[in-house]
């Protein structure tokens, strides 16, 4: 707030109850007075809000896992079950896919159809590999009698990791739709907005995965 503005306000609003009179000078920057934002800005912001709400959703599953990690009903615990090599491979896949997704952003910004499709395809393949590894792990666990119905601990494990897996699958479905839309629709504004949202989603899934490998696999393995 500039000095004359403050002086004016102090004069006519002696109790500072917030009824600033008109100063006649529009003063916009930094106070959110710049008028409606362009579509690119608010589409991105809306999706950012959605991602935050999704993170809250995951926080419930994280909390449940942490609360139920000791509730094994005589069944196996993390140390007997988790194979950290698979986890490391999954982590690598997802981290690389997050990187290639960033490359797609660069290609989309430059309207390069070829590179957009190539990097998206690599992102998708890495995502598929991740899902394959996860499915392999789940099937192995169930085969060893450590399915989600065995104990509350396994329930919370399958639910948390599975919820992330469902998100990745939804992301792959979206990725496929995007790969079809680039050639069909070109790089027009709405498609670029959509891609922006997709990239936010994909990067956010990787951030969630950082939480999962840290809390579920690593901390889970070191705590008795």
């Amino acid at each position, binding site marked *: 707030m500039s000095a004359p503005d403050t002086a004016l306000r102090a004069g006519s609003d002696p109790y500072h109850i917030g009824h600033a009179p008109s100063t006649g000078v529009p003063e916009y*920057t930094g106070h959110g007075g710049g008028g409606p934002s362009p579509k690119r800005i608010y589409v991105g912001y809306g999706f*950012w809000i959605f991602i935050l709400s999704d993170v809250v959703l995951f926080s419930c599953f994280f909390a449940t896992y942490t609360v139920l990690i000791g509730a094994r009903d005589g069944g196996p615990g993390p140390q007997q079950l988790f194979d950290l090599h698979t986890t490391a491979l999954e982590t690598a896949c997802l981290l690389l896919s*997050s990187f290639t997704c960033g490359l797609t952003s660069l290609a989309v910004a430059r309207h390069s159809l070829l590179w957009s499709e190539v990097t998206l395809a690599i992102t998708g393949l890495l995502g598929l590999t991740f899902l394959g590894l996860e499915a392999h792990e789940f099937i192995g666990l169930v085969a060893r009698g450590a399915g989600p119905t065995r104990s509350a601990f396994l329930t919370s494990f399958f639910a948390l990791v599975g919820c992330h897996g469902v998100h990745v699958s939804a992301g792959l479905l979206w990725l496929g739709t995007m790969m079809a839309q680039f050639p069909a629709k070109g790089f027009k504004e709405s498609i670029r907005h959509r891609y922006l949202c997709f990239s936010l989603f994909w990067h956010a899934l990787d951030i969630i995965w950082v939480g999962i490998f840290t809390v579920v696999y690593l901390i889970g393995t070191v705590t008795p």
Partner: protein
Amino acid sequence: MSSNRDEFDLGSHVGEDQVVGGAPPEREHPTLRTELRGYLIGLGLAALLTAASFWSIDEHVIYGPGIVMALIVFGLAQVGVHLVFFLHLTTSPDNTNNALALAFGVLIVSLVFFGSIWVMFHMNQNMIPARALMQMRGG
């Protein structure tokens, strides 16, 4: 301020905000090289922190009771790396709304996560099932 706005979403661009995950904040025509470098740095740092996480439990290099704390630190650092290098979230004035939303989200997540753990820990302590209590007393 022009008053004839024909576009539904067209407004003054004064104080326009940065888009999360959009182009990195360098305003003067980011080249492919600088942008690529950003993603590569992010990838490198994230890979390093991931490796540190896995290594710290593999080798027993860290004082036992400190492992969990170290893992949490590495994890949080990596989340930070992702936010900065992949989502291009910064503390610039253009990013205030995005960062505030993130802060609100972090607050809620911590309240739900740590609050639940705190509440449930105390409940589990105070409300031990009668059978288990009897076993404890008997044994």
